[in-house]
């Protein structure tokens, strides 16, 4: 594979996807490379999924600026990009006088950062809205502009918009090095071939320091800090919360929060565990116990029996403590989007606009007059009116066959997810686009069926269908000599 581009974006997380989409607004030939079989397979798949209001970060930091601006852009583009976001608002709960002082500080900081509508509520006012919360809560900071989202869905939306506007996304394409001339990159070397390019954007998440070092910039390092979660069945919602509740933060962490997702499942987490291994996203007994115990301080009657899964994500903690954004000081045509830890999900659209701005200035690229907003229409059978459902089945009878019974996902939605721009290639890819397999049986019922649909639509043998990662084959042939792909 030999390719040429104006800009190569490395990493298909929320940051890379948002940047790619932003670049298509200009006349720049852009290619995104992602090492895994699908985008949104890194930190973007396992996080708290909260679109923060922006009162945590200190005034003047990149985190503060990008957070507030990113939140604003999501408000603006929610309808246009058909984003799975619910603007629930968020609370920070305080249980004693010291914590009440802290939330007042947060309110002031938020006001300085330009966060709209912050207010302090009494414990009783909070409990009137969230009756399951602990009686120990004395007061709370209310942030109406916060929301919850479907994090991979956001990245996928940006990717679809980008591909629709002519950008290219190469998956299972891992960057292994660079060709350079002086202090400029001339080409990106991947395991699938070389891409000649004028600019490179480094959005490689937890690996951004390695990519930067490969290009010759060793000015920062990234270390992983694990956060674990427990997710609960929707059926337990009545014992849970309606929105987002943080405890009062400590110096090191926002603490273990309780949040009900866009689709009605509640989760608790994350803890914060520093580690060396950038691949270790395993969940631990200690971690799970820690977060369940902590969460009980907010929700004393947490229904432990209703847990359906656990997961962990890695924060990309940078050695500078802030987001690292903009031009590298040592490599002339490398732009960094590194150290994107929380609130990275929220900040990504702002980061994208900021970096696109720099690139436009550098290249003098003109506006793309043909840029189209939005993305192809999605039909979510589950949420439609009966009239609309009837009509859909008439047009395409695969809307009449339910594949995922927990989340009521039809065969037509799955087929569509596979054939959309930057479509699903894996079982988890289908899950992240349609929710098939997200429910209480966690794909026990639909996993094999989704595997068979993927094989049929992609015209590959069932034994080549993967769950998520490169070697994650789902099924083997009965032929006793074969294994995995063979």
């Amino acid at each position, binding site marked *: 594979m030999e390719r040429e581009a104006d800009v190569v974006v490395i990493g298909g997380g929320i940051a890379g996807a948002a940047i790619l989409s932003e670049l298509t607004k200009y006349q720049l030939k852009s290619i995104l490379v992602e090492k895994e079989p699908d985008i949104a397979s890194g930190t973007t798949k396992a996080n708290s999924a909260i679109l923060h209001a922006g009162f945590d970060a200190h005034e003047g930091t990149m985190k503060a600026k990008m957070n507030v601006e990113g939140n604003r852009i999501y408000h603006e583009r929610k309808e246009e990009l058909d984003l799975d976001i619910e603007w629930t608002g968020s609370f920070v709960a305080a249980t004693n006088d010291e914590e009440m002082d802290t939330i007042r500080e947060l309110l002031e900081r938020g006001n300085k950062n330009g966060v709209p509508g912050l207010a302090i509520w009494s414990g009783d006012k909070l409990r009137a809205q969230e009756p399951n919360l602990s009686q120990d809560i004395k007061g709370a900071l209310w942030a109406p502009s916060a929301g919850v989202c479907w994090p991979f869905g956001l990245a996928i939306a940006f990717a679809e918009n980008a591909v629709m506007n002519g950008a290219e996304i190469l998956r299972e394409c891992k960057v292994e090095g660079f060709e350079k001339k002086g202090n400029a990159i001339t080409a990106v070397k991947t395991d699938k071939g070389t891409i000649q390019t004028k600019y490179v954007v480094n959005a490689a998440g937890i690996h951004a320091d390695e990519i930067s070092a490969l290009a010759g910039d060793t000015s920062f390092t990234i270390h992983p800090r694990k956060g674990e979660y*427990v*997710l609960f069945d929707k*059926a337990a919602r009545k014992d849970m919360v309606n929105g987002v509740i943080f405890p009062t933060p400590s110096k090191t962490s926002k603490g273990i929060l309780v949040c009900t997702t866009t689709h009605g499942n509640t989760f608790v987490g994350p803890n914060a565990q520093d580690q060396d291994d950038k*691949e270790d*996203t*395993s*969940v*631990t*007994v200690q*971690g*799970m116990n820690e977060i369940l115990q902590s969460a009980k301080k907010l929700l004393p009657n947490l229904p432990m*029996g209703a*847990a*359906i*899964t*656990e*997961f962990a994500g890695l924060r990309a903690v940078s050695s500078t403590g802030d987001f690292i954004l903009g031009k590298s000081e040592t490599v002339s045509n490398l732009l960094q989007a590194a150290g994107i830890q929380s609130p990275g999900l929220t900040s990504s659209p702002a980061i994208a606009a900021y970096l696109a701005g720099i690139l436009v200035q550098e290249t003098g690229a003109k506006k793309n007059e043909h840029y189209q907003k939005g993305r192809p229409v999605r039909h979510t059978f589950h949420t439609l009116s*009966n009239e609309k*459902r*009837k009509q859909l*089945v*008439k047009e395409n*009878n*695969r*809307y*009449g*066959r*339910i594949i995922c*019974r*927990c989340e*009521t996902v039809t065969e037509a939605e799955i087929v569509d997810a596979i054939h959309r721009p930057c479509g699903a290639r894996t079982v988890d890819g289908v899950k992240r686009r349609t929710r098939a397999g997200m429910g*209480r*049986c*966690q794909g*026990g*019922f639909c*996993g*094999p069926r989704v595997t*068979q649909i993927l094989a049929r639509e992609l015209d590959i043998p*069932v*034994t080549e269908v*993967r*769950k*998520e*990662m*490169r*070697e*994650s*084959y*789902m*099924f*083997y*042939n*009965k032929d*006793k000599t074969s*294994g*995995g792909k063979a």
Partner: protein
Amino acid sequence: MGENYDIIIVGGGPAGLSAAYSAEKNGAEKILILERDREAGGILQQCIHNGFGLHHFKQELTGPGYAHRCYESIKNKKSIEILVDTMVLEIRPDKTVLAVNPEKGLMELKAGTIILTMGCRERTRGAIRIPGYRPAGIYTAGAAQRMVNMEGYLPGKKIVILGSGDIGLIMARRMSLEGCKVQAVLEICPFSNGLTRNIVQCLQDYDIPLYLSHTITRIQGKDRISGITAAKVDEHMQVIAGSEFDIDCDTLLLSVGLIPENELSRGAGIAIHPLTNGPIVDQHRETNLPGIFAAGNVVHVHDLVDFVSEEAEIAGKYAALEVRKQTKEPLKDIEVVPANGIRTCVPQHLRLGAEGETVRLFMRVRQPMRKVKLEIRSGGKILLTKPLPVAKPSEMIAVDLPAEKVAGLAEKLEVGIKEGA
């Protein structure tokens, strides 16, 4: 669309088919079975081993064989219609059923009475919280069974099975027959949760080790599972430090229990029992919503399909009588309470008229016991005792309370276990 039926049966497994058979025999005229799979028969279709039907058909059949017998008994009945490939989306308390299939699209159907026979589903990994990664190669035993027996693929080659429920045991044998290596079956309880005959025929005959009081403390492998760490647990089911050991595998099958499938029931507003996880029913299997009945694994997970059919025939009969307005108003409501040693008992209450009727009670004990007796009491009087040489949580106990004893009931019925036979 907007069609009316005497009875709508949700689920075409053995419970649904048996309910239809009995409803028809009891005079119901327009019966519709809705089944989401491509044919009727339910989970039995993937249970290609023997051991079904000894009680009900007095003959040892395979799963599909049993399903076929149920199907044969109704397939020529004009009053019974089956729609396959059809998913029920919603059941409303006014007995409207919303269903969809590719051929007919979205259907809104009205029923005189409804029988819920959706069966059960398998518990997954989340419910038991195993630490480690989330790689490919972890399946519930039932999902793997479907893949092997119906679709013709293997979940893997080197297998560890967690949980000694019957599906897990059956799958241990199946995988061995397919040429796979079953490394171990791990069970957290000090006893197996499967039928004794399955332990012998599926594990011992294939030299598969069963580790009782063991669990999995870690899953290894990031893309595809590459092994697990097993450990011994103490009597409180806590891991004993230092007892860990690793087992290689490329597949983990979970057989960690079944739970009634009650999403639709909950949506309709049916009261669910916290221990059976199924609807609370009376002796006719009527739920708290008048005219909505439930039977089989959707009510409580059975270990023998024969009992499922039997229970479904009761529900079918009374659903038919209710449509035909032949049921009598009950005069009293007697609660059935599990007492000493009994974990669950179905039905949970009896709605009785003036004359008595024979009532069959289905129970599960809390722990394995030997040489005990079952005792049924009401108002301080012992109504019935039954010696039980062995009693295990994995084996459902069924007893009939004769009509004359039922007729005189005035106070709640207590069902318990006493030491000494």
